[in-house]
């Protein structure tokens, strides 16, 4: 069985981003970029399924500018077999990403697509669900456990009240949550090996998809700043202040 893992290049999770003063967006010049953390978990899960003999090939797909190839290389260095780079400049919204991935799926015929549940830049949490919808496949989102069992996959999901388990008929879409696994670091020999792994380039046009954005971004601003308050000297003083403030 083949597994497709879409990976997105985003601002590194440890970077504190800055909003441009003119409200035109977030300043990404000279900011450290990395693979979306949830996508790393997706790559790791695919690798574990392959190592357990349940998958045969892992294809990493990224949609984005030239530099997105670095993110595919990261997935290859972790252990993915080959890459597909859909070259697209500018903003590509989740709906367009899902359409592009659907076109890739039609060509590759995977048994499973594993995606991060959300990208930490736009925080949309949409792509996996949209891809499942367009393919007419079942979906197991926010996964904390994935068990492949013949032509089914059992997915334990992190939900508001705790955990929920669903059983899906393959092919299916799974999106990862934080507790699914701890992604590995790529070893130096594997980073070297990844340089020789193939990455195929394609475009939205070649895939027959209109990737133009549907939403207009009117403005981007800083959130209202929160002022640091006061330090209290003791627990008793703290309780006093909270009573005075009327919150307890």
């Amino acid at each position, binding site marked *: 069985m083949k597994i497709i893992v879409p990976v997105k290049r985003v601002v590194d999770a440890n970077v504190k981003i800055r909003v441009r003063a003119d409200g035109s967006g977030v300043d990404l010049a000279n900011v450290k970029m990395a693979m979306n953390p949830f996508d790393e978990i997706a790559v790791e899960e695919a690798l574990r399924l392959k190592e357990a003999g349940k998958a045969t090939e892992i294809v990493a797909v990224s949609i984005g500018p030239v530099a997105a190839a670095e993110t595919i290389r990261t997935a290859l260095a972790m252990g993915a077999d080959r890459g597909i780079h859909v070259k697209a400049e500018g903003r590509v919204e989740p*709906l367009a990403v899902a359409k592009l991935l659907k076109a890739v799926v039609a060509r590759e015929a995977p048994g499973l697509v594993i995606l991060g549940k959300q990208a930490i830049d736009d925080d949309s949490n949409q792509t996996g669900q949209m891809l499942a919808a367009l393919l007419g496949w079942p979906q*197991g989102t926010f996964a904390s456990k994935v068990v492949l069992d013949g032509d089914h996959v059992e997915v334990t999901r992190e939900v508001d009240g705790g955990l929920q388990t669903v059983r899906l008929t393959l092919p299916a879409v799974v999106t990862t949550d934080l507790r699914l696994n701890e992604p590995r670091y790529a070893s130096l020999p594997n980073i070297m090996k990844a340089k020789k792994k193939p990455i195929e380039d394609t475009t939205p046009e070649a895939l027959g998809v209109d990737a133009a954005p549907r939403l207009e971004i009117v403005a981007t601003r800083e959130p209202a700043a929160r002022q640091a308050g006061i330090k209290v000297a003791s627990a008793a003083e703290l309780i006093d202040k909270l009573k005075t403030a009327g919150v307890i």
Partner: protein
Amino acid sequence: MTTLLIADHDGVRLGDATARALTAARQIGHPVEILVAGENVGEIAAAAARLEGVAKVRVADDASLANLLAEPLAVLVVGLAGAYRVIAAPATSTMKNALPRIAALVDVMQVSEVTRVVAPDTFERPIYAGNAIETVRSIEPKLVLTVRAAAFAATAEAALSAPVESVAAPQPAGGSQFVGADLSTSTRPELGSARIIVSGGRALGSAEKFDAVVAPLADRLGAAIGASRAAVDSGYAPNDLQVGQTGKVVAPELYIALGISGAIQHLAGMKDSKVIVAINKDGDAPIFQIADYGLHEDLFTAVPAMMDALR
């Protein structure tokens, strides 16, 4: 032009998140109808009908909708979608699972986690863990939105109930099957609607200490319990207590952070709380920069002292 708000519930009662999302839905300005889907949801539909400003409640009551799985719910909503200009739902885990599936099937780009209604087609939403607020305008003929419940007050009940009508449930979609759920049972308030939250971090050190220190203070204050990602990853607290960018987003009257350093991903989930208290033995912890009241002390001495002061 009408708005369809999809109700979230646990099979027993209408969640507070729906009443909050209703506030946002009403601000858009079109008449609002609520869809209650599920199995044996008559009581829930009646509760939805009592909410102020609801034009009509539509109920799809069928075994195939019992756990609100995305696949059957999407088929149901897509079948009804033609009559609506806006399809909205609270951004709960159930609806975050289902709404993008619906959006893709009606070929609409969804607006996730709306925190403010600027105009009927224009909304604010947080990006980058809440470190930027984006204003987006949709030019599509239909809008699909999820609403961040913590950003809106709950709509109150009205004197008169709205009419309730049944809609037929579609044929089950197949392909996905509910196996089971392992849900927390707690008599404490829900995280999403609690007035006070006591939250614990990595500094608690173990699940036993988390229970021994956080729980009594929470119970004394009538508070819900939250946790940082570090505490959940370490197994001190279950996943459904996680507050943060990818966990629950809360905005209580009072948020007490015990031994939480304040990573940006955690702040994303709680920085809109009215009053924030930070207790940490690391005086440089970033949480102090946004706390209204900071106590630089080991939580294991501070919490018992707070319990004493509350006596």
